[in-house]
């Protein structure tokens, strides 16, 4: 057992899989010699050499396209798209190629690859370097979307993603890179599609992802201590596959549900979850399902503004307190 940062967990997860399977290769911008712009891939070049850890040009379409071609023919590439926002310059692979090829070829083609990105806000990077792109990736049957919130989940889910025979978008949260957590020694392999109840509770269910997970936990603590409201906090972890059973089971127990989403309001992942709940758990609900999101704005750069935009612990507390006492 060792305490690792989230960024160290990334390198550990990749190293675990590269050491296990020589078909795992890794490519991206500044990932090799420089160890990544988020320093999340330090040491991999030294350990696995330049044939397996490949610095590329600034050519995101080449990165994802090459990863796909390699995956189709036997490798298991991990591709880094540095800031998740850059998914937009290679979106054809996300939307049209990765998810549809197995289906269109009637199962002839497998695309076992992982696209890792630095996702999310909080670092004052402004509107084009701070987005939460899970929603850009969640619309495509055939693609899987995962977003860990702790070092141990980073290692385990990354391993699961690499071993998964389907293409997986793996979203690391930039503002979590410096956070720490205990990670057991030895091989760690988690499962995609399993949510985690991080805090059991009986009054309301809070669904969160990525950086919103620690905030949801903190909010739950405050709601308990200051308002006597006992919230169950679920780290969704994997949007596709989705652990609907865990989520609906919790709602059946609590009767109320809140999503905490970093994305702007329109068509965030919470909309899908709420819609499923509203359909399938309609008679379990004691009140409206509420989405706590960034408002309908691009993220501003200035710290004071960004802090106001992204759901804060106090906003979560206030929203839940007000809703439950309404």
């Amino acid at each position, binding site marked *: 057992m060792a305490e690792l940062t989230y960024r160290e967990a990334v390198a550990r997860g990749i190293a675990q899989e590269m050491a296990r399977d020589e078909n795992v*290769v890794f490519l991206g911008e500044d990932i090799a010699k420089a160890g990544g712009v988020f320093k999340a891939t330090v040491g991999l070049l030294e350990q696995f050499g330049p*044939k*397996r850890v490949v610095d*590329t*040009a600034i*050519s*995101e*379409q*080449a*990165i*994802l*396209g*090459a*990863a*796909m*071609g*390699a*995956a*189709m*023919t*036997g*490798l298991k*590439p991990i591709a880094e798209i540095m800031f998740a926002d850059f998914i937009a310059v290679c979106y*054809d*692979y996300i939307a*049209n*190629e990765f998810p549809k*090829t*197995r*289906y*269109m*070829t*009637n*199962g*002839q*083609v*497998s695309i*076992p690859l992982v696209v890792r990105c630095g996702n999310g806000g909080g670092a004052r990077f402004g509107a084009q370097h701070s987005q939460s792109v899970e929603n850009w990736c969640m619309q495509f*049957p*055939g693609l899987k979307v995962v977003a860990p919130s702790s070092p141990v989940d980073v290692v385990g889910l990354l391993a699961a993603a690499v071993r*998964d*025979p*389907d293409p997986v978008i793996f979203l690391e949260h930039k503002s979590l890179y410096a956070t720490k957590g205990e990670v057991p020694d030895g091989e760690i392999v988690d499962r995609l*599609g399993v949510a985690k109840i991080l805090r059991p509770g009986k009054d309301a269910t809070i669904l969160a992802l990525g950086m919103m997970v620690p905030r949801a936990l903190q909010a739950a603590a405050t709601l308990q201590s200051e308002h006597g409201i006992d919230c169950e906090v679920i780290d969704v972890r994997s949007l*596709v*596959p*989705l*652990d*609907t*059973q865990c989520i609906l089971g919790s709602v059946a127990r609590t009767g109320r549900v809140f999503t905490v989403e970093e994305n702007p309001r329109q068509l965030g992942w919470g909309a899908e979850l709420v819609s*499923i709940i509203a359909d399938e758990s309609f008679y379990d609900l004691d009140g409206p399902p509420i989405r706590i999101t960034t408002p309908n704005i691009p993220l501003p750069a200035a710290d004071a503004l960004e802090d106001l935009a992204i759901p804060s612990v106090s906003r979560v507390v206030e929203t839940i307190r007000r809703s439950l006492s309404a």
Partner: protein
Amino acid sequence: MANKLAPSPPTTIHGQSDAIEIPLTKRMEMYRLLSLLRQSEQRAYDLFLQNLIKGTSHLSLGQEAVAAGAAAAMQPGDLSFCTYRGHAHTLARGVPVEKVLGELMGRDNGLMRGKGGSMHLTSIEHGVMGSYAIIGAHLPIACGAAWRAQYKGHKDVSVCFFGDGTTNIGAFHEALNFAAYMKLPVVFVCENNLYMEYTPIADVIPVKHPAADRAAAYGLDRIVVDGNDVDVVYQTMSQAFARARAGKGPSLIECLTYRYSGHSRADPAKYRPAGELDKWKELDPIKAYRKRLGSLGVQNDKLDAIDAEILKLIDDATKACQAAPPTSTDILFTDVYADGGCAWRN
């Protein structure tokens, strides 16, 4: 703006094609391929007129020498990456006609049982790694396959076919740069048929040759060949393969050719200047090859016999397709994920 490329036999960089030495058995194999491609595409067109092919389709009538010459130069294990205009390249690698026509007709005997359609023909067992319908997407993908070969020390080459219009999309540039500095065993084959969908390529580029005039930007040789001369294509491709297998990196080959039909089934191709089609038909790749084979001593009736044999094969395939049931609907929900299904939640 008028086409800057005259419809006269283009120059080749490889000397006179009549001087190319190719064994007669290889030449006969190529004639057979030409005949197969020509007659299969013609059949696809006829079936479309009979409303037995739904959706879109993009024929290679007139362009067969590129597919035939390239396929004849490939070895088993080499990988083809095609576009929506991929029937010919798919058939040339040995995929049965019945499978291709069945797919176009949406029958259960189709190559992908109707799930992909005309634009996505794929047959991994024949090295046909897919037909790609979003312009440019498959150039980086072909690089990836070549990267795997390089990494694993495999000797196969990836071949990526695309049109003149594809040279102006971003993915072209990214792929060429990536392949070139990585020295990947990939051969990029631009079929310059003078048109994108309906707009002449010459209207939208500031150079004469959409592919070849960009080669130097990636440190590659400038290669323009007569894409209607199957021997020239065969020889040029063979050289590119040798280069790729020797670890010397990619090639970019521009083949000048012409499509006889419209861009897709919806297109009567009225935008072509009067006479252009006729001039190109005089340069027909099959007519020309019959002539060359004749001058090499092959009798016409031997070639006619090949044509007849192919026709029979296509007739049989057509009948099989017409007899085949429409795609079974139980495959609607299969193969979205590797577990065989489409469930994304529990």
